[in-house]
């Protein structure tokens, strides 16, 4: 019975860490692709569009992430499609990230001073031109800290994929702990690995913020 943590176990945890990074990327990229149009739609002139996107956000934000994972994994199977755990987890992360990123970005867009909109309008720019050339560049600056902050959340929340047996870092650490009974070693290593992903992100966010402030 394995009672010590071996090199092979550490390698397994590093593999789990790669899956955690992969899942985070899926969440962030998917969340951006889905979330950005929603953010822009949320400030559109159409009331119906604003309302229905608001409903989507309220719905996703109102469902705990593990339930989203369950729904994507087992729910879709019930409908007759066999989705691998990675795809299901990626879908759940995408839905989850898109709802939060959309709200973060909507807030950033709306916190660009109204005078900027009006000034752009006076220059006879179309709504699209105003958005692309005037509002978005300023909104990006505002959105960096909360976006990176949420990215760190995404990384940590990938651990919910444990409920569908996806072999990310937390799941791997749990398995190894169950077999070796060295919780302090195993979970300390897992914590260090999570930190190794998240700290550079926060650091990068601070640097980017400083750089944009100067620009």
């Amino acid at each position, binding site marked *: 019975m*394995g009672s010590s943590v071996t090199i092979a176990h550490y390698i397994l945890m590093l593999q789990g860490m790669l899956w955690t990074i992969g899942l985070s990327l899926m969440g962030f990229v998917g969340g951006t692709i889905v979330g950005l149009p929603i953010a822009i739609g949320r400030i559109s002139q159409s009331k119906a569009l604003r309302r229905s996107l608001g409903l989507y956000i309220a719905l996703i934000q109102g469902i705990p992430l593990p339930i989203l994972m369950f729904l994507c994994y087992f729910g879709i199977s019930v409908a007759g499609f066999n989705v691998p755990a990675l795809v299901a987890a990626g879908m759940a992360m995408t839905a989850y990230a898109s709802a939060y990123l959309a709200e973060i970005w909507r807030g950033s867009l709306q916190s660009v001073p109204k005078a900027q909109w009006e000034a752009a309008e006076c220059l006879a720019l179309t709504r699209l031109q105003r958005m692309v050339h005037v509002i978005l560049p300023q909104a990006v600056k505002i959105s960096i800290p909360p976006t990176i902050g949420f990215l760190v959340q995404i990384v940590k929340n990938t651990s919910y994929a444990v409920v569908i047996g996806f072999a990310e870092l937390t799941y791997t650490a749990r398995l190894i702990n169950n077999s070796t009974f060295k919780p302090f070693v195993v979970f300390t290593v897992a914590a260090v690995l999570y930190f190794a992903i998240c700290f550079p992100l926060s650091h990068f966010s601070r640097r980017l913020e400083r750089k944009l402030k100067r620009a």
Partner: protein
Amino acid sequence: MKRFIAATLLAATSLVATMAHADSLADIKKAGTIRVAIDLGAPPYGQLDEAGKPAGSDVEAANELAKDLGVKLEIVPVSGPNRVPFLLTNKADVVMASFSITDERKKVIDYSDPYGVVPTVVGAPKSQALPDFASLAGKTIAVTRGTTSDQALTKGAKEVGGVNIVRYEDDATTNTAVATGQQDLIAAAASVVAQVNRANPSRDLEIKFVMSSAPYAIGIRKNEAELKAWLDQWIKSKIASGELNTIYKKHFGIELPAEYRGK
């Protein structure tokens, strides 16, 4: 939220349960692979060995099963709470995960004949005298939610009253709580008590009394007559040859009850 998860699972599983199923045995043979759901976080049934590979009594039995069926073994890692959904949503062909037979589970899935038993016990430090359920009154005891130990404890404690049951999400968390001294009393499978002692010898736990002895079997989807017949025959022959007892002895250090030992 736990209730929410349970409700979602139940909704999902009952939907699938209503779908009649095809002949899994033929499907398995056609695919050349049997997908066996095993809990790799439940030593000594399923665990990771020093090389990080699956090991344990269920893993060994599943290997034998695949060999005798003439197909490759694909282990689908599951945990206690998601064993049934994995089976029902066809993410595994069979479940061999120290899968005790319970009436609730029988409503949605079928079982083969049993191939082993899980004795569930109450463990505590040697210094405490706990001969029976009555002595648990006013005490706090740790258990993993939804396991047969949980059921046996809940049933036994109901008659006593005043027992504070703390339910953890999986065995590792329960064991860690006891090994680190957060909890003194544990209700679990007999093998767990020895493991906690290994993790932290200063706890000095011992088995106080046996709550129940639960047979476990291979879980299959409903309406799988061919598969069930094959599995029952396989288990019968493995009990007769003594192979199941050999595997059990190797991992548990004790023999199976007489009726599982063969000649």
